């Protein structure tokens, strides 16, 4: 228990550190989906820094690695910051994010070390992940396939095509984590087209469903522990309640910040918000 508490407090430090990096990266580039990145950062920190996933930064294509699919490719600044922090590439590479001679753009790309797919168009990652999980079953390989999707992504019909497929084929080596930040592009999801009851929807599609606080490392750990034992025949979905823009109060709970990086005075306010949160 003490060991886990230590790990959790390390991840909390990492979370603050990488939040700052994400914000700085996007402010410098003048673009990038800041709020979408901040909502799912903690989930990915738990997966990587919390060592829920098996991976090897020195050998990104290691055959035994767990496959992590970031389907909401607009959160690439968060994922890139994590991969850089783990040594997949130099943190310095992020300085040229979405700029001339930069290697990375606004949406996730497959050729970045550690990244499995190109994403940006929504509703693709889950299907590809289910194909990978199916291949693991066929080959009797033990790696897990974990896919992170946005809640707004659940509007895509292709998500439900794959949801049916995965439960029918008993892909209990497939885990979906939904970044449930309740915001889409122009409005809150429940104003837009009601997503709730989201848990019931996934349950009725034959999935094991867990609902957690997506900024609680303890919750994230608990939701994924014993996942390798595959006691259940069903795939697992973790609906993680998050805050879009977490850590930067000035950008939270406002759909207008979707897809944007703050500039000028707003950038200063955002950085200040982040520092205030740190001091709290």
């Amino acid at each position, binding site marked *: 228990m003490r060991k886990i508490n230590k790990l959790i407090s390390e991840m909390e430090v990492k979370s603050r550190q990488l939040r700052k990096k994400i914000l700085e990266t996007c402010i410098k580039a003048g673009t990038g989906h800041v709020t979408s990145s901040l909502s799912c950062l903690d989930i990915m920190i738990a997966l990587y820094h919390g060592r829920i996933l098996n991976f090897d930064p020195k050998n990104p294509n290691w055959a035994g690695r767990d496959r992590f699919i970031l389907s909401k490719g607009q959160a690439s600044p968060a994922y890139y910051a994590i991969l850089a922090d783990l040594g997949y590439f130099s943190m310095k590479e992020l300085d040229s994010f979405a700029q001339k001679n930069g290697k990375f753009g606004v949406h996730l790309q497959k050729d970045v070390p550690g990244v499995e797919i*190109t994403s940006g168009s929504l509703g693709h990652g889950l*299907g*590809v992940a289910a*194909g*990978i999980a*199916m291949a*693991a079953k066929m080959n009797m390989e033990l790696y897990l396939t974990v896919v992170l999707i946005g809640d707004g992504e659940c509007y895509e019909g*292709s998500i439900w095509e*794959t949801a049916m497929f995965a439960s029918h084929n008993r892909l209990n080596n497939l885990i979906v984590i939904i970044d449930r930040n309740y915001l889409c592009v122009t409005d809150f999801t429940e104003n837009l087209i009601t997503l709730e009851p989201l848990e019931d929807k996934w349950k009725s599609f034959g999935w094991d469903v867990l609902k957690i606080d997506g900024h609680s490392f303890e919750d994230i750990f608990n939701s994924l522990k014993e996942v390798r034992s595959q006691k259940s025949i069903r795939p697992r979905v973790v609906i993680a309640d998050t805050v879009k823009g977490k850590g930067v109060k000035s950008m939270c709970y406002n759909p207008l910040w979707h897809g944007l990086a703050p500039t000028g005075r707003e950038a200063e306010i955002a950085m200040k918000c982040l520092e205030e949160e740190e001091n709290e």
Partner: protein
Amino acid sequence: MNNISQRDAFWDRVYELAKRDKDIVIITADMGAPSLDKIRKELASQFINVGIAEQNAITIASGLALTGKKVFAYAIAPFITLRCLEQIRVENAIMNIPITIVGVGAGFSYKEAGPTHHLLEDVGVLRTFPNIKVHTMSDSVMASVFAEMTCNSKNTDYVRIYRQTLPTIYKNSADFSKGFNVFKKHKDTYIISSGSMVQMALDMSKKFDIGVIDLFTLPISEELLHEIKACKKIVTIEENFLPCGMGSAVLEFLNDNKIDINLKRIGISLEKGYCYKYGGIDIIRKYYGIDVNSVDRQIKNFIK
């Protein structure tokens, strides 16, 4: 391979290959075939039916292929191409994950099923993507060979299968690696055709003494240049909408190679649009002016 459909020839060959190679996986969007039944029964672990869900067929296929599987994704042609076009664009064109897309029902081959099942746009759409090759099957010999060629290919292949059994025009020893076949050489006039229209082209060549090329793979191989650069007139015949179709590809090819040859495209004009015509392919072709008599007349006027 007389009296066997392209579909059956294709899947028979896949069945033989899959028996020896456990990495071959066949995905169907609930589309059947006698050979598929054999695969479903005897090679159950290599067979996946995703239901009528073409978007899922392509993403599942691509996920499997990312791990090294050799995947065929199969459905009625308009649905396995246009319904899931954006999946093909992202997974197979942008990410360059190689799979084989198999569509039955090129052109008007779902004749009585109406315009939802006629497919006149797929060549035009899919040939604009990098990393994807479009192959139009002319007979069952070709379909059988393409099952093996595409299985081991490093890019995504789209195999267009005609629903009706077409006359066998190739010998079993035929080589399809160039992407075209010169049936009959000619010093100054050629008909270039594909799929269901090749037999008509062969018939016309006897009547008018002109050369015939079956152009089955797009993009066009540079090797075609040697065959046609010296000729004076070319007619293209296809069962597709004309914009961006096979004939347009030939036009672009000539233009890119700075070859000035008088070319006439015969195919489906946009002005005629879609049709609800029943009673057979000949009636549909007549409506669009690509039946034997119309083509005969157009060629006669063009080459005189």
